[in-house]
């Protein structure tokens, strides 16, 4: 019936999506929306009701500067995007309304710059830097984890397992500081200019080779730090997942049928062992948006993390609030995608309806 419009592959995929899956889909969407609403509500009330709530502090600041109470309130309102003289629940409705229109208020420090705009400017850098590193460390982790699961108790196994555990234990910013120290200051392999910022001043952004090379040079050390601090965890998880998969009856049964080891590694061991990791990957992607506050501060990398860090220093509450909201929404979305992905990859889950 729909074969003309959709390609054969799409129709087979659609045939794999019976009614239970639609229910599952709808339920997932509703759960995500609910979580987003819950979190935004929490943020709203927490900020306003906490001791030293930023709205009042802001108003106080302005009062000290000599404004009248009304003027102070008006300025605060325009900064935070709400009207302060209204009762709390009306402010809340207004807050939600603004949110749905993509209005996250205006920055306290950079007057009249919409928070949303600031976030959108910085977002690509975080997504690029952490996203790329995430993919690299995931791929490395899967490959190495599977290798050492096959070669248990070899020197490689002991080396990588201990190394991975050590890397996983160390806070990422310690690794960052150590690497900058060693590679830039002591051994002078990496020029200091490449440890700060995303591009060199004077280079125009655009699709030029010069630009790409410059970006990569600035990114290299940062990528190294991310990959070093994250790969360990992937290696360990993949190793344990592969080890338990190798013990499954169907692997022995596959060998009993004379299947070539290559096929067993990919379709029988690999696919089953990486299943739990793929969902973790989807979840990690959500945290990518959060950037890494500390690391981007150290590298002065213009992402969301640095934005938050600067906002924290300058007590720029609208920006703090905005970044936090965007980050949380990203995580909720990635949870949603992870659920779907797991259901699609593991045929057993589809019947059950919900990922465990």
């Amino acid at each position: 019936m729909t074969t003309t419009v959709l390609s054969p592959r799409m129709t087979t995929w659609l045939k794999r999506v019976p009614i239970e899956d639609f229910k599952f889909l709808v339920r997932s969407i509703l759960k995500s929306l609910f979580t987003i609403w819950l979190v935004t509500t929490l943020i709203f009330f927490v900020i306003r009701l906490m001791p030293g709530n930023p709205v009042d502090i802001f108003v106080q600041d302005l009062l000290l500067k000599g404004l009248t109470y009304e003027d102070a309130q008006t300025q605060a309102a325009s900064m935070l995007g709400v009207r302060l003289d209204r009762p709390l629940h009306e402010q809340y409705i207004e807050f939600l309304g603004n949110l749905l229109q993509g209005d996250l208020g205006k920055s306290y420090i950079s007057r009249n710059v919409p928070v949303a705009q600031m976030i959108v400017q910085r977002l690509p850098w975080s997504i690029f830097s952490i996203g790329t590193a995430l993919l690299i460390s995931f791929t490395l982790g899967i490959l190495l984890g599977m290798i050492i699961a096959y070669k248990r108790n070899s020197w490689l196994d002991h080396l990588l397992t201990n190394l991975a555990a050590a890397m996983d234990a160390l806070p990422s910013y310690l690794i960052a500081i150590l690497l900058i120290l060693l590679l830039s200051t002591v051994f002078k392999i990496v020029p200091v200019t490449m440890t700060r910022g995303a591009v060199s001043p004077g280079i125009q952004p655009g699709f030029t080779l010069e630009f790409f090379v410059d970006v990569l040079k600035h990114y290299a050390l940062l990528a190294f730090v991310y990959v070093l601090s994250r790969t360990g965890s992937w290696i360990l998880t993949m190793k344990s997942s592969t080890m338990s998969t190798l013990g499954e009856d169907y692997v022995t049964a596959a060998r009993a049928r004379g299947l070539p080891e290559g096929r067993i590694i990919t379709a029988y061991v690999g696919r089953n062992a990486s299943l739990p990791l793929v969902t973790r990957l989807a979840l990690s992607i959500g945290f990518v948006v959060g950037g890494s506050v500390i690391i981007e501060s150290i590298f002065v990398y213009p992402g969301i993390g640095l934005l938050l860090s600067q906002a924290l220093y300058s007590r720029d509450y609208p920006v703090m609030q905005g970044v936090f909201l965007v980050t949380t929404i990203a995580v909720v979305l990635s949870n949603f995608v992870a659920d779907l992905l797991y259901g699609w990859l593991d045929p057993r889950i589809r019947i059950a309806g919900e990922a465990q």
Partner: protein
Amino acid sequence: MTTLRTFLTELGTTLKLLSRNRVAFLGLIVLVFLILLSYVGPLLWPAETRSNLAEIYQGPSLKHPLGTDFQGQDNLLQIIHGGRVILEIAFITGILTTLIAVTIGALSAFIGGAFDSVMTELINVWLTIPQFPLLAILATMLKVSDVWLLAVILALLDWPGLARQVRAQVLSLKKRDYIEAAITLDLGTPHIIFREILPNMMSYITISLIFATIGAIYQQTGLVFLGLVPLSGANWGVMLSLAYNRGAVYTSDAIMNVLSPVGAIALLQLSLVWLARGLEEVFNPRLRTSV
């Protein structure tokens, strides 16, 4: 009295098994060393109060084994004094986190029903919130300078992750025959939880306690590094933060000033991880690498 004796014998056997695992034993030794250094050290070597401008940023020497900082003060001395607060906050947070998580996780799994559903949803929502940004924002707004308050805040943020795992564990234990028997015999919820379920989870709880502590160290040093927690006094994190803010990372003379706290914190984290992994192998023989 008998519980104390059984606890000590358990401890003895665990230590003996642990000694076979080289990495874990190393972790234990290093951890004990750091604890002694931080608690006994200050008594033996009192802190410096004056700066010594003639000896700024000196490298390692006999007089200053770890060099000096931007004020000419000895780095090693600062390391000796700087561990106590970190350890205190870490262990208090670890214990609080584990207490809350185990209680709520176990109760939730055991009681089930509406309580469980609400708790699970709460935990799930909580876990979607990026923890460190939230922590950073809270720290900014609350201006925490009290050790206990910081520990409580960290614990309040950290418990859901552990609670979810505890709940899963208790749920699987609940299906075991002896638990079903206890329920049928109507032995009472507190009895079943505290006398039947939890003792069988002790190993799991101990390991979780260590991981909670590791997390707490990461969080507190991160906050201190960003300057969001106005903790004064000797503290490896403060030492690192001060050194970093003075550009010590980019000055080859000042390396020791940075390396000392980095090394100390790294050693602490590593020793805890090695200990935890070793305990995991001891408690779960299937993980052991040798036959």
